[in-house]
């Protein structure tokens, strides 16, 4: 059985590792810390702005890619994204997501702006900002970072992306997550809402505010471990309910992280947290092992193939030094897009900063353009995208993860079928 090491436990790393393990590889996932999912809205953004607002992301993909040479969507087409999203939905479980990768929903944010995303947690579906919608935005005053008035008033004065307007009013609840606590995080509220008794009291408080015909917008705190919170609250409130994602810790992101971590473990992935990769060994153009900083003494993980899912600047995988030089911090790989004089321009609200397009280059199988034959890269480390501005991060992550995993599995199958004779794979036996 071939061994694969995946580095990084964000969306890209978890998906790649699970697919590899399900395909029969022996997978070790080493990671410095938790990946970016608990910071994310828990939505699957494919393409939101190109740069104007996108309504049908997969239809827009080819044109967007053509206009942006070097963007990962030049290698990962609409079918690759469909495959990636379908696989993610399978891993998360059938009830987790709603929506269609073909169409963007337009959903309210925590400041009352309207954000495009394609496949979203079931609890967000009823929040689609369409002409004639009537929202009541409400939540506990004891919850940090949720301001019903700001959200409702901004939504109500916005011309909707697809035309028309919606009506929104707001109300603030006096409803602590725990007795005596005055500024709890969303996660604390979510834990309280996991408890059916607390949930009943909360639903009663909300029900008292709702007028006929209104859809209720709540903060995205509908439970971390109990999957029935949405249906239960909807029934008890007696009106459709949707949620608005909050700044981190983001409950839908935490939930997705838990679900995908559990799926990886169930598939047999050996997850090693707290293991920052600090070194590696290679020979004849192949990586032999990575070495992690571990309590006491470094540990070495040998493998036949390696998948790098280390994210970008935000996770420390890329580093800009004081001489304006960008480094890939794990293997020192050559970078694409780093050889320009002005990595950051002064116009903060202007066009995308060149710095954020820096990353590693790959071929169509996600094999890294660099010194090693058996190293693949997926997710945020890929060059060419400004993920948060385009709203393309999750689409790239899942499509590249599935592509790389399938390429590695195919390479394994090929070497298994041609023993001894294939000299291209010498050294892989290490």
């Amino acid at each position, binding site marked *: 059985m071939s061994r694969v090491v995946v580095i990084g436990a964000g969306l890209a790393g978890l998906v790649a590792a699970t697919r590899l393990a399900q395909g029969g590889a022996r997978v070790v996932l080493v990671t410095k*810390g*938790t990946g970016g999912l608990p910071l994310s809205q828990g939505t699957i953004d494919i393409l939101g702005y190109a740069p104007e607002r996108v309504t049908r992301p997969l239809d827009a993909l080819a044109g967007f890619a053509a206009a942006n040479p070097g963007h990962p969507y030049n290698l990962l087409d609409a079918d690759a994204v469909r495959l990636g999203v379908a696989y993610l939905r399978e891993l998360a479980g059938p009830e987790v997501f709603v929506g269609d990768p073909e169409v963007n929903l337009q959903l309210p944010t925590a400041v009352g702006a309207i954000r495009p995303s394609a496949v979203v947690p079931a609890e967000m579906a009823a929040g689609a900002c369409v002409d004639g919608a009537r929202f009541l935005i409400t939540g506990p005053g004891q919850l940090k970072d949720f301001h019903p008035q700001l959200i409702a008033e901004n939504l109500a004065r916005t011309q909707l992306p697809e035309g028309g307007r919606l009506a929104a009013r707001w109300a603030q609840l006096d409803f602590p997550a725990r007795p005596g606590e005055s500024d709890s995080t969303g996660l604390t509220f979510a834990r309280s809402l996991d408890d059916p008794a607390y949930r009943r009291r909360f639903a009663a408080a909300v029900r008292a505010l709702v007028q006929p015909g209104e859809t209720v917008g709540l903060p995205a705190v509908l439970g971390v471990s109990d999957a029935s919170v949405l249906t239960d609250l909807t029934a008890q409130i007696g009106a459709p309910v949707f949620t608005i994602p909050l700044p981190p810790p983001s409950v839908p992101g935490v939930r997705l992280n838990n679900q995908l971590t*559990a799926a990886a473990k169930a598939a047999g992935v050996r997850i090693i*947290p*707290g293991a920052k990769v600090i070194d590696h060994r290679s020979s004849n153009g192949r990586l032999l092992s990575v070495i992690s900083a*571990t309590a*006491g003494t470094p540990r070495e993980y040998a493998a036949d193939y390696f998948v790098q899912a280390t994210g970008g600047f935000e996770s420390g995988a890329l580093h800009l030094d004081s001489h304006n030089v960008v480094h890939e911090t794990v293997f020192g790989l050559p970078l694409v897009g780093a050889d320009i004089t002005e990595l950051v321009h002064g116009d903060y609200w202007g066009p995308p900063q060149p710095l954020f397009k820096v990353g590693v280059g790959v071929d169509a199988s996600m094999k890294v353009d660099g010194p090693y034959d058996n190293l693949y890269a997926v997710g945020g480390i890929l060059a060419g995208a400004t993920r948060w501005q385009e709203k393309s991060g999750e689409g790239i992550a899942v499509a590249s993860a599935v592509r790389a995993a399938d390429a590695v599995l195919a390479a394994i199958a090929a070497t298994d079928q041609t023993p001894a004779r294939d000299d291209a794979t010498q050294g892989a036996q290490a």
Partner: protein
Amino acid sequence: MTPHDSNNAHDNNNYAADQVARASLDHCVKCNICETHCPVSAVTPLFSGPKFVGPQAERYRHGESVDHSLDYCSSCGTCTLVCPQGVQIAELNSQARAVMKADHMPLRDQLISRTTLMGMAMTPMAPVANAALGFKPLRMVIEKVVGIHRDAPMPTARTQTLTGWLKKRKAPTKAPTRGSLVYFHGCAGGYFEVETSKRSIEVLEHLGYEVIVPKQSCCGLAQQSNGLFDQATAQILKLCDELRAGGKDLTIISASGSCTGMLKHEAHEIMGVDDSRLADVSTRIRDIMEFLLDLHDAGELPTNFKTIDITVPYHAPCQLKAQGMGQPAMEVLKLIPGVKAIESGVTCCGIAGTYGLKKEKYEIAQAVGQPLFDMVKATNPDLALCDTETCRWQIAKSSGVRTEHPIYLVHQAYGLS
């Protein structure tokens, strides 16, 4: 003598200021990931959580602590493990707590830190000690006077120490084929959890190793976690000398998950002990399940295991997870035919060494461990597995399920019991 001699917790904040832990706070990007994993702030509003008492409050500390909820941190180490930016949150917290408590260290915290003393005192009168600690009125007096909660788990004293067993047992009949190892049993493994040590040694001997058990004392972990850094430093260096006397360059094996963590990294990273003897031991010591898995990965572990048909809950202690090696016991258990080990998925059992013994923390510790106790009972009411002694006592006491070290099943699967 040693470079850390000036690092005195009673002087000021020196040892912390000198440490990399403090420098790491500037890496905090306020992502809140640590907050989502902290087992204590999840169950009580009394603790504001790792980001707040760690990188946030540390900026305002100049000796004096600005946030006294810090004392509710159990030092489980989870926050440091999950932080994607490498902030040493738990280490910062432990250092700040030592400073905060320096001038009013409760007698209770000094007493419960003296693990060896308790073991030595209890062994010769084990039946008496066990009966006394099971006696409710006495426990209520202890709670009042000393501050140890009346229902907190206490170890069961044994009539024989490990040293006693080693002296009396028949010498192994098989000649070693794989060289020598040094065995570190820890206080619990010497006095209370004697069976775990015996089984570990027998497994290693079965594999063909000669096992050397040098005379050894306490690693000082309980003192460290209670902020008694001076005593803990003296302890651990004494222990290093003793373990080094077992043999130069030999691998050191232990089945005490948390004491191993103290030797591997905590003494250095929390107390700033910077001593070549510690550096030598910390690079040579391996957890026993880690060692077995390394052997397996190298193709050197015999897997002619007997089938054991059992579904068993396995809980990886937080201080083991903090060592950054994953959960080796899970992988080793997968090698035994018939064994279906179910990972608890729970962050911490609550006890965190001596935390859950304290009367003001007992309820919190129970709430932290509750999902684990429920999971254990639901998975197998007769047996649970966990790598660390105090966690086993906590799980056994609160769930009513007998709890053993994973080596227990390996021993059985090799036909040794």
